[in-house]
């Protein structure tokens, strides 16, 4: 394999990781000033900040590899929806399908599924042969442990709470579940990166992830949804329309005032 191909592979892989964190951060930030209580407002903002920090480290690295003088800002603010490589799970709205735009149960269900995945993934990436990626992942391991813990606590509190909170938490898990399959889909890119020891095979994470999820769901008296419909496309830039709206808002300042900086 010639070096330029490998470089573009790394760039693409970093976009997947970085876009996951960036879009997750943006979605979580929608809760700022709207969470059910002040402590939760701060908690979700803190988790969003961790994700944004991860996104910056990953996208800065991607920008350096991508060349052309692009920066992390150019990658975050000047790409179109089709150029984003995040999984569909993180772009899903925080609300109930056909219902309220902001739903705490759905947000927690997404956070639980995603942070359990991110925690396992960063543990494995911490030993990547790509030294810089390993260092970034090493920090994420510690942070995602807190995210997972927070989501698990709420899942149990709501699942094992009142009849109404149980019903809504179960509905939230059911709504989110189909989108988790994409997290564990391996493809040619991941196979090439696994071969040189720098990437992780997504499929190899599912057993550990399921075991975490099943433990939390059982403690929360919730049923583990059946596997069935498994939409994907995020890794190749085919997203739900929700991402376009999210980017429209996130990128508006930068597109209105090109090159603006704090």
């Amino acid at each position, binding site marked *: 394999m010639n070096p330029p191909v490998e470089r573009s592979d790394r760039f693409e892989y970093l976009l997947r990781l970085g876009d996951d964190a960036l879009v997750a951060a943006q979605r979580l930030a929608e809760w700022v000033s709207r969470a059910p209580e002040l402590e939760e407002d*701060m*908690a979700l903002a803190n*988790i969003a*900040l961790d994700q944004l920090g991860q996104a*910056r480290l990953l996208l800065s690295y991607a920008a350096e590899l991508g060349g052309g003088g692009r920066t992390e800002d150019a990658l975050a603010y000047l790409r179109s929806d089709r150029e984003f490589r995040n999984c569909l799970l993180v772009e899903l709205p925080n609300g109930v399908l056909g219902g309220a735009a902001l739903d705490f149960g759905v947000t927690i269900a997404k956070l639980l599924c995603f942070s359990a995945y991110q925690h396992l993934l960063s543990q494995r990436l911490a030993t990547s042969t790509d030294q810089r990626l*390993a*260092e970034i992942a*090493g920090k994420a391991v510690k*942070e995602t442990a807190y995210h997972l*813990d927070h989501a698990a606590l709420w899942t149990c509190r709501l699942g094992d709470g009142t009849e109404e909170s149980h019903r809504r938490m179960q509905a939230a898990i059911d709504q989110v579940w189909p989108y988790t399959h994409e997290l564990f889909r391996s493809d040619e890119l991941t196979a090439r990166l696994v071969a040189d020891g720098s990437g992780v095979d997504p499929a190899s994470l599912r057993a550990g992830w399921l075991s975490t999820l099943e433990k939390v769901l059982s403690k929360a008296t919730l049923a583990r949804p059946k596997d069935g419909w498994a939409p994907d496309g995020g890794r190749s830039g085919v997203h739900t329309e929700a991402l376009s709206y999210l980017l429209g808002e996130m990128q508006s300042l930068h597109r209105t005032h090109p090159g603006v900086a704090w």
Partner: protein
Amino acid sequence: MVTAVEAPADVVSAVPDPELPMVSIADLGILRSVDVSEHGRVTVMITPTYSGCPAMDAIRGDIRRALTVAGWPDVEVRTQLSPAWTTDWMTPEGKRKLSEAGIAPPGPHQDAGPVAVRLSVRCPRCGSPDTSEISRFGATSCKSLWRCRSCVEPFEHFKALR
């Protein structure tokens, strides 16, 4: 006239944390190294507490300012991610200062045993161990929110990260 120039390491060590001004960046363990080249260029290595810590930019600026004022204008501040920062690097002095300011410092390192036992966090005001966690996340990424059942005061706790 010869002006006594303070050593760069001393200058940088004294830079306060912007969010927790009662402790210095050396107290917190986020200062990794200070090197001076033969041409007088100072290279400072710092490490973030959390990936998204918004204080990092302010800390970089504060280090540059402090060194420039002390007579070292040629400064490079670099960030090192690995090994990842842990609260074990906080100095005993730093922990004491946090406690005096009403922030319960992170506890000592505990090896994960077969049964997870969490030592209770002592109230920094009255010293009571009868406390409870209100929220895992506080006003900054590095702190959680607690309350003391004895003196009924809320307080912040610097989360152990390791």
